[in-house]
Every structure is written in structure tokens, then in C-alpha cells.
């Protein structure tokens, strides 16, 4: 089992969700995040004081999947999120030791989906 974390542009959330659905990945969790990467920030000016904003709004996805779903999931995220511009985001993949469904107490592969 793997845990996939992805940072994407906020406005790509809907296309990513659609792409995931097409690959039959229905379960995911989303959080708000602020990201600092290769993407240049932008310039704000508040009451005459300038500031370079370099923490940009991002959406963070967290998806727990069985091993065979890893590549389809990565592909789907790329498909939905890629615009070709800096700031498109990043995907991280980690090992997932255990997964428990709270409702039933099921564990492992069965609990994930």
C-alpha cells in the first residue's frame, strides 16, 4: 500500500478529481496548503509597504492506494493538473504500513478502497 501526496494548483482540483474517477480512484482527502517552489510569487503592496508573497495557495491531496493503483493514480493527477507552467505541482509517494476502516475495523488492502 502506498500513500500519495500531491500539491496542485487550486483551480485544477476539479479536473484532477475527474481524472481520478476515470481511473476508479474514488477516495481522497484534500487540504488547503500554502506552497513555495520554483514558481515565482507575486508582489503585494499594503499601505505603501511592498511585500513579495512567495507562499502561494495550493491544494494538497492525500490518496491511500494499493500498489497496483500507484501508477494510474500518478497518471491521473498529472493529466488533471498539468498545464505546462511552473507551479503545476508535485507528487510524493510513500510506503503505507497499515490502513484501517474505522467503521468495520477492516485492515489492509480491503480497507483502502
Amino acid at each position, binding site marked *: 500500500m502506498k500513500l500519495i501526496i500531491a500539491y496542485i494548483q487550486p483551480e485544477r482540483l476539479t479536473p484532477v478529481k475527474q481524472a481520478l474517477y476515470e481511473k476508479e480512484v474514488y477516495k481522497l482527502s484534500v487540504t488547503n496548503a500554502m506552497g513555495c517552489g520554483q514558481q515565482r510569487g507575486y508582489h503585494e503592496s499594503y499601505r505603501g509597504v511592498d511585500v513579495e508573497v512567495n507562499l502561494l*495557495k495550493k491544494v494538497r491531496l492525500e490518496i491511500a492506494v494499493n500498489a497496483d493503483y500507484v501508477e494510474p493514480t500518478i497518471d491521473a493527477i498529472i493529466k488533471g493538473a498539468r498545464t505546462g507552467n511552473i507551479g503545476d505541482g508535485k507528487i510524493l509517494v510513500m510506503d503505507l504500513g497499515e490502513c484501517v476502516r474505522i467503521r468495520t475495523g477492516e485492515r489492509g488492502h480491503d480497507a483502502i478502497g
Partner: protein
Amino acid sequence: MIGKSLQKRVLPLVALMVLLGGTAMAQEEAAGVSAEMFAVNNTWMMVSTFLVFIMHLGFATVESGLTRAKNTVNILCKNTAIVAIGLLTYVLMGFNLMYPGDGWIIGKVLGFAGFSIGLAEGVDATMAGVGAAPFTYGGGGYTYWTDFLFQGMFAATAATIVSGAVAERIKLGPFLIFSTIYVALVYPAVGSWKWGGGWLAERGFHDFAGSTLVHSVGGWAALAGIILLGPRLGKYVNGKSRPIMGHSMPLLAIGVFLLWLGWFGFNGGSVLSADPSAVSFVLTTTSLAAAAGIIGAMVTSWIVQKKPDLTMVLNGCLAGLVGITAGADVVSIHSSVLIGLICGAVAVLSVIMLDRLHLDDPVGATTVHLVCGILGTLFVGVFANGVVVGSGADAYTISFGTQLIGVLSYAAVCFPAGLLIFGLLKLTVGIRVSEEEELKGLDIGEHGMEAYSGFQFFSNM
């Protein structure tokens, strides 16, 4: 310039008064009033001015509430600027375009009484209300200054109506240019047709406080803007409409209550004196239409959408108010309730219908101000058909036909004017922000700042 006062809005008397022959006060006005009555009238008109002023805050909060958090600074900035632009252009030329006095240039269609108000030499003692009774300027209802300020507050309203409809995608600069032109030229020019004593006034068109002269005039330009701008990104995907939710229902509610409050001055002040009977009757019809608008929209929304949608209920309140504005002085109490109910119900259906037509109006301005503005104007011809307004030479009889002519005349000028101005701007400087800016929000794009610094919100739309 003294003659001007005589061609101000004809004081509409409630039908009731006419029926009962209660014209003591009306006669008094023709001959000028006592210093005391003048002071009361003027005080009332000043209070009405404040109420109309606070409508601008109402518009600002309604529009902010119904749009996304990332565009809030932009909306507030636009609405603030418009009040300033409205007042200042009204000083420069608007007032004298709208109330040209004897200065008609083209028939009774266009007139102008010269640039700038209030030069010491232009305003004489009588107009300013200095001197002894009887006071005659404006029938003893107000001073020249009050007149200017009250009308000036109205002027900015027309442009503000546009603001909401084109929100979340229009460039700030071009919008301000549009507003300046529209409020300096179009609004006062067409306003003169009725309130300036122009050709529609002579034909007996009745628009008490501006269902057409203010609301439709703004509404037509809003429609033009929506068409030329196109919908917001993500509003219509593969031909399907998707909701783009407003970010603050409390702001919306604050705005609607303030607008209702302001309407007491908008309609109540349009009596142009503190005449107890006329003003209080107008306030009653106005309030009942607002209340009925709420109920009409709530019931309709509950039926159509299964659950009562607060944005619809509050739009319904405004719809009722716009609907009663043309005839608040001449329809009966029961008609005012009926007008409110119909406008409230229509508001819900119209918002849904315009959305189906892929006309993207984030705040429902075209529904509330244009659709209900037209309806309200026509309803005068239905619910007050045959009522005689005014007395003596100025008297006229309300008819559906004339109301329709009025509605069509404004349509024929305002909609093309809106298309023309927005069109020219589109061809030259462009009117729409870049896709990237629209996604990121106009607050950052146009102003380099945020409305809710530190707060976390999803901005995935």
C-alpha cells in the same frame, strides 16, 4: 436658472389624495410655503438623501457577499469609486443635463444648462433657500443644494447596478471609464425625458422614483456588459451551468437590509416634500412590496429549488422594492402587496432563466433591476390605469400604453449605449482580465492585496 425649479419632477400625489380632494397642501406649495414648512420639507429631503447614500453601502455588501472572497477588494473599490465619480460628474454636468430647465437643445429630448453647479453667481438666494417666506424653489420642498445632493446620490446608483453584474472578471480601469461616461452622460440625458420635464413627462409617462429611470437604465447597461464580457471561467462547463457560490451570506443580508432602508429615502424622498400623507403612503406601499417580495421569492424558491435559497429570498426583497418604485404613489395598498409577490416570484424564475441562457450575472442585477424595473413600470399601467396624477396644466392620466412606450424608449437608448461604450472599450483597452488573474482573483491582480488576509479558504473555483 430660476425657471428650472418649475420643471422638476412633477410632484405625484397619491391617488387617494386626489380622490378625496385634499389639495390644501398642494395649493400651498404652488404658492410657496412658510419658513417652517420649508424647513420640515428640506429636513425630510436631507434625511432621504442620507438614506439613498447608504444604499451604496448596501450595493457594495450585496455584491461582495454574492461573489468570491478573492474578488472582494475589487468590488468594494469599484463601489466606492462609483459614488465619488457619480457625485463629481453630477457637479460638473450631470445635474444640468438631467434638469436642463429652459436649456433644451434637441426637442425635449436633450438639454443642458451649462457646466458646474453652485457658482456663487449661479445660485441665487431663492434657490438656496435664503430669505423670507414664501419659499418657492422646488415648490418649497428643498433648497438647491439639497436638490443637487439628493439627485446626485441617485445618479451613482445606475452605475452601481452594472458593477454587480460584471463582477469577478472586468478590468478596473475600463469599468471606471464606463461608469464615468454612463453616469455623466447617459443616465442624466435619458433621465431628463421624464424628471427633467422632457418629452416623456409631457406624454404622461409615470415613473415615480425610477423603476425605469434608475433601475432599468442601470439594468440595460448591465445586460450589455454581461454579453460583451462573457461568463466567468468555470461557470458554464460543456454547456452545463455550475454554481459559483458567494462567499458571505451575512454581507449579503446586511446589504439587502440597508437597501430596503435606503429605499425609504429613494421612494419617500421622491415625493419631493415632507407631505405627511403622500410620504407615509409611499413608505407603506414600499415596505409592503418588499415584504411581499420576500414571501413571493421564498415560496417560489421552496417549490422550485426544494429548499428556500437565502440568496433568492433576499433578491426577492429587492425585486419587490424595484417593482414598487415606479408606482409607489399611485397603486393601492393591496396592489402593492400583489406587485411584491409577483416580483419576488419572478425574481427566482428570472435568475434561473437568465442562467439557462448562459448570461452570467453573479448578483442577479439584471433580474432585480432590469426585469423587475420593467415589470414595475408596466404594473403602474395595470394597477393604476386611468389614475389622474397632478392637477392643472401638469395633470396626466396613467395608461398602460404610455408606460410601454416609456419602457421601450429607455431600452432603445440604454442598451445600445451600454453595448457601444463597453464595445469600444473592449476593442481598445480590453475589458476582461487575463485568465490567470481571474483564477488568482482580481484582488491580487488589480489591487495587489487580499480582502481577508490570513484567513484560509479554498479558492479552487
